[in-house]
């Protein structure tokens, strides 16, 4: 088996054993060598003791999806040894700790034993060091086996421990220990190996949550309230970390307030209070938190309070699979809360878009005076992704929406909080404290007239609800457009997807094209759907909707909200909690096409027409 710059390495570890840092070092070094890397952390809902895996696909620079299959397995966890062994592809490699004897029930793989525990026991006295450096030793061995540039790895260690100089040398020593062992005992490099790639120099490696947090900083968010929950916690934590550095006034005081609330109800309440009072505010949560926030989301929709909610989706229902990925909050978020409610949703496809769409979310929220929900997920949020650099246009003006100041109140027409003055159904608002005698109003979740006064007049309430519907139509024009990628001008087959599945779907389309199935792809980026969505559907006979939930939630939304005929939309559903692989998507779509004779016939026609 020969594989150059195209293979999967998987590390099987025990949670809490310090492997994360070494595994990231491995991925980062390959990234710095100009290669495409797709790292996935497959971790348990546990702090210490349960199995955890880290998988790195090494690939050409443009690829960003998980591949599946394992070429090189580093099996460091006795609990999962049998399972890990079985996962290796024929002709692949097993690297294991040979300090203790192990069975090898397979003879179609190559086995490389390194007495890692024994080496560390000899080299270190402190038990914690003996454990931690085991991880560094196997990375060291891999540098030789895979022919990695050791200078790059060494530099990555130095950068990793910047400011903790004491840790640099011991880590490099441990790397060398593993590397030397491999050089002495195995024929290095293996036929599975790397050589420096030519990826663009400006790429970055970042998690979606980190990029989302930066989006909040750049959008000018000043109030964040949150309650810890995987996988959204790192959004709030990263926001606080960055804001503490970048938001200091001359006296060292902070131009930001971050509150860890007592629960998600309080978190969203604080955010609504702050937003009502004119600050840009956000909260970040996941599934169970979304459920708790329902009542307040309805209030903010009806009282028209603008704020941003980051939903990093995880496996549901209920507590579900807290450390696995899904896209199963689509319906809940689109219609969160009782009564007729609808919310603006944004779907970033990679961390760069997490940054951009989060910043846009604040502008949209204030322009539309409504909550905007950024729909990320665990795969996007918590895994490192390689993407283009984050960019900010310094000429950009934050859109603060329709807010009347004292002068406008003084000179303008009589203030009506919920009047449709401009014909776009978006009313004007005022902030508390603006004017001594003009512009005060009473925000409420009960039915109200255009002056915000309580009313039990059903007609007046219905008119207000109708205005909110028209406001949603305005939203349709303002939200980011779907991205369409055509592989054929005449083909009648399409695929629709959104969010983190982008990487797999894109690669799957390339694979399908190679097999003769040319699909046009549309990646949704927002709800409400823009005109382009229905138009795309009208131009195609059969459209595969790829999503990570059981019930085809986006498909249902496309049918009810974009009016796309149900028979055109074929669900391709995955809900095992793992990031999609291109191969799986390709297989599902190809099988569906094959089995559908009429579609095959339509394809024939379109092929002939080309």
């Amino acid at each position: 088996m020969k594989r150059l710059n195209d293979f999967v390495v998987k590390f099987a570890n025990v949670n809490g054993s310090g492997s994360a840092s070494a595994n990231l070092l491995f991925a980062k070094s390959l990234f710095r060598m100009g290669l495409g890397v797709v790292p996935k952390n497959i971790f348990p809902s546990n702090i210490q003791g349960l199995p955890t895996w880290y998988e790195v696909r090494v690939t050409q620079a443009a690829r960003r999806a998980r591949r599946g299959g394992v070429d090189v397995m580093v099996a460091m966890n006795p609990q999962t040894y049998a399972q890990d062994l079985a996962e290796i592809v024929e002709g692949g490699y097993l690297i294991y700790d040979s300090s203790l004897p192990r069975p090898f029930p397979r003879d179609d793989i190559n086995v490389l034993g390194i007495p890692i525990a024994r080496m560390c026991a000899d080299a270190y006295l402190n038990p914690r060091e003996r454990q931690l450096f085991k991880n560094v030793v196997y990375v060291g061995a891999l540098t030789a086996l895979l022919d990695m540039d050791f200078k790059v790895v060494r530099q990555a260690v130095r950068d990793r421990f910047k400011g903790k100089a004491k840790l640099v040398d011991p880590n490099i020593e441990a790397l060398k220990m593993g590397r030397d062992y491999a050089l002495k005992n195995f024929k290095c490099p293996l036929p599975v190996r790397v050589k420096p790639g030519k990826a663009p120099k400006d790429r970055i490696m970042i998690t979606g949550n980190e990029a989302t947090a930066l989006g909040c900083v750049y959008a000018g968010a000043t109030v964040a309230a949150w309650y810890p929950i995987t996988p959204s916690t790192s959004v709030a934590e990263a926001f606080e970390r960055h804001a503490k550095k970048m938001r200091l006034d001359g006296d060292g005081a902070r131009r930001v307030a971050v509150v860890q609330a007592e629960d998600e109800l309080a978190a969203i309440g604080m955010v609504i209070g702050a937003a009502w009072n004119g600050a840009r505010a956000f909260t970040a949560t996941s599934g169970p938190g979304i459920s708790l926030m329902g009542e307040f989301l309805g209030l903010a929709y009806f009282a028209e309070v603008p704020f941003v909610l980051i939903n990093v989706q995880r496996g549901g229902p209920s507590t579900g699979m807290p450390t696995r990925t899904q896209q199963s909050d689509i319906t809940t978020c689109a219609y969160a809360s009782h009564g007729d409610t609808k919310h603006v949703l944004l779907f970033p496809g990679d961390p760069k878009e997490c940054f951009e769409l989060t910043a846009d979310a604040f502008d949209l929220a204030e322009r539309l005076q409504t909550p905007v929900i950024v729909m990320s997920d665990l795969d996007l949020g918590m895994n490192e992704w390689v993407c283009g650099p984050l960019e900010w246009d310094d000429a950009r003006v934050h859109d603060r929406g329709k807010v009347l100041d004292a002068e406008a109140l003084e000179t303008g027409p009589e203030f009506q909080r919920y009047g449709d003055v401009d014909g776009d159904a978006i009313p004007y608002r005022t902030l508390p404290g603006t004017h001594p005698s003009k512009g005060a109003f009473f925000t409420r979740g009960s039915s109200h007239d255009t002056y915000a006064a309580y009313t039990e007049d059903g007609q007046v309430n219905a008119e207000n609800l109708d205005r909110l519907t028209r406001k949603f139509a305005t939203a349709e024009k303002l939200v980011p457009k779907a991205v369409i990628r055509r592989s054929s001008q005449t083909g009648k087959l399409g695929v629709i997807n959104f969010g983190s599945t982008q990487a797999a779907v894109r690669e799957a389309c390339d694979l399908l094209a190679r097999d003769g199935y040319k699909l046009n792809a549309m990646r949704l980026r927002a709800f409400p759907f823009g005109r382009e969505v229905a138009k795309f559907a009208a131009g195609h006979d059969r459209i595969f909707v790829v999503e990570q939930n059981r019930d085809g939630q986006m498909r249902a939304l496309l049918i009810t909200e974009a009016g796309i005929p149900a028979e055109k939309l074929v669900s391709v559903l995955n809900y095992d909690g793992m990031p999609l692989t291109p191969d799986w998507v390709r297989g599902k779509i190809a099988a569906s096409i094959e089995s559908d004779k009429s579609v095959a016939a339509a394809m024939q026609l379109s092929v002939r027409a080309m």
Partner: protein
Amino acid sequence: MTFMKKPNVRHPGLRKNELGLTRRDYEGLLSTLCAGCGHDSISAAIIEACFEMDLPAHRLAKLSGIGCSSKTPTYFLNQSHGFNSVHGRMPSIATGANLANRDLIYLGVSGDGDTASIGLGQFCHAMRRRVNMIYIVENNGTYGLTKGQFSATSDRVSKSKKGEANLFEAIDLCTLAIHLGAGFVARGFSGDKEGLVPLIKAAFHYKGFAFLDIVSPCVTFNDHAASTKSYDYVRAHNEAMDRLDLVPEREEIIAQAEEGKTVTVRMHDGSLMRLHKLDDTYDPRDSESALTTLRKRYSKGQVVTGLLYIDDEDADLHTLLNTTAQPLNAVPMSDLCPGNAQLAKINKSLR
């Protein structure tokens, strides 16, 4: 109905305050509560206090949850922004609003159902965070708006209008407030306007979480003979602990108070509060003594009123979070958005 505006009749003879405003200017829409409801007396006391303090009403935000009591912010301070939020969640709205603009005054109004049941958690956490606000519970021992169910502040010995016994222990909100870090804790009675107005004023002068538990009889569902939150019961069992005098910063103190009987507290805004103790067995600056007094008097069936506890710690939530002096909602975007050069540095650290 609530949306009825009061007739705007000017009475030239009405007294004006320093802002040139009359008491009328501090009113709200016509109340839709039952005639005689204690909550209306509290609204009147708030209006009186704000008028006398020359308060610029637009610098105050009035916030509430859901209930008859939570409706009342519509009935006072028409020039203030108001926020009638959802049931039990006013504390989080107030916390967020306060974070966004530390320069306004925040007046939260809630009920005993809103605070002691559905909102108990948020109430506790707003206190421990020392949110700078005035928090009033209009305590009638019942759910007025949903027609007379027991609330968590109903005393165990109290009975419903239909004569049902209350099975569960009452939550004493003042005790809870002292335990959880409210720096100003007082109890008032809606039937005692003379006592109430100074308490409300003092709460406005306090920086930090000022809690006022105001017993406010529900004439429709909880004013009967077997109720411990009726006008008659509270009048018969009310024990005033002290009488308050507020001396604004600009006025001199003339009379020297009687030694031992009077406690003078300097408020954070410079004004002085003089507390004439009617019971000298306790010291309102000592939380232990306040708690003991509350418990002892309660077991005797008494309803103690007055300023029960005050601390002089100067730290509110903003102090604790070290936020900038400028209100966060007024910081210009140029000071909030770090710009592309900074982003380039961040990109570099991610390579």
